[in-house]
């Protein structure tokens, strides 16, 4: 039997998923703060350049934005 996603609807309350997203965001923000603290204070002489920061924030924001988007789509289809 073929599995087809369009046949399946789940009824997990979206509030729960928004809560999970909030937890993930909280974890992400705390970790980012600790990472930046280390980058600022614990390098020897060569400072950590702007490129790793751009890559870190760029990809992270894309992922977070996509999570928001999928949750909104989930809510619409609920």
């Amino acid at each position, binding site marked *: 039997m*073929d*599995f*087809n*996603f*369009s*046949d*399946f*609807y*789940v009824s*997990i309350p979206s509030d729960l*998923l928004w809560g*999970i*997203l909030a937890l*993930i965001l909280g*974890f*992400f923000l705390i*970790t*980012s703060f*600790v*990472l930046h603290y*280390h*980058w600022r*204070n*614990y*390098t*020897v*002489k*060569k400072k*950590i350049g702007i490129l*790793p920061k751009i890559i*870190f924030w760029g*990809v*992270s924001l894309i*992922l*977070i934005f*996509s*999570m928001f988007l*999928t*949750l909104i*789509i*989930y809510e619409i*289809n*609920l």
Partner: protein
Amino acid sequence: MINFDKDENLLIEIRKHWLVFVSEVFVLIVFSIMPLMIFSFSFDFSRIVNFFEGNLSSLLTFIYLAWLLLLWVAGFIFWTDYYLDVWVITDKKLLDIEQKGFFRREVSFLNLEKIQDVTYEIDGLIQTFLNYGDINVKTAGNVEGFFIGGVPNPALVRAKINEALIIFKTKNRERIKKDIRESLLEKIKTSEGADDTLLADGINLD
């Protein structure tokens, strides 16, 4: 931030070979692909158009994105750990800074005067082709030496340590000469009947 003396010059910063970091990242890449692999067993890709029709697909996408975000952050934690794990050679000492996770950091240093011998070892096929190996800094007496593992271009690092030793010994010799000269001049000045011409000429220890 590590503080150095005013007259101390940093000669080289050494990190582990990039292969160490890449091997950690490889595990993360495997973890990021794993859900897709499991998914591909139960999904007919010819139906990809229908994927976004149900809400199960958006839920799975949400979970997968959250997973990717956690792995992404983990990757940067690994990178930070790799970047902050560093050996520093100055013209006065050798510093070993070891970052163990987020909240544990060990800093140990070895004065150059304690160093007796520096050897390096490149062992095996991968190390030979990628030119990395281990450095052993042996010390005199009971002072514990340094082991620097997985260093890129160990021959160059050994040369840098030797260069630091030469600079240190030259500076040290000059400082000792200066101290002796000053103490002798002081003695002559305080002794009775000091000869002005002798004071004017100074003392040549060379």
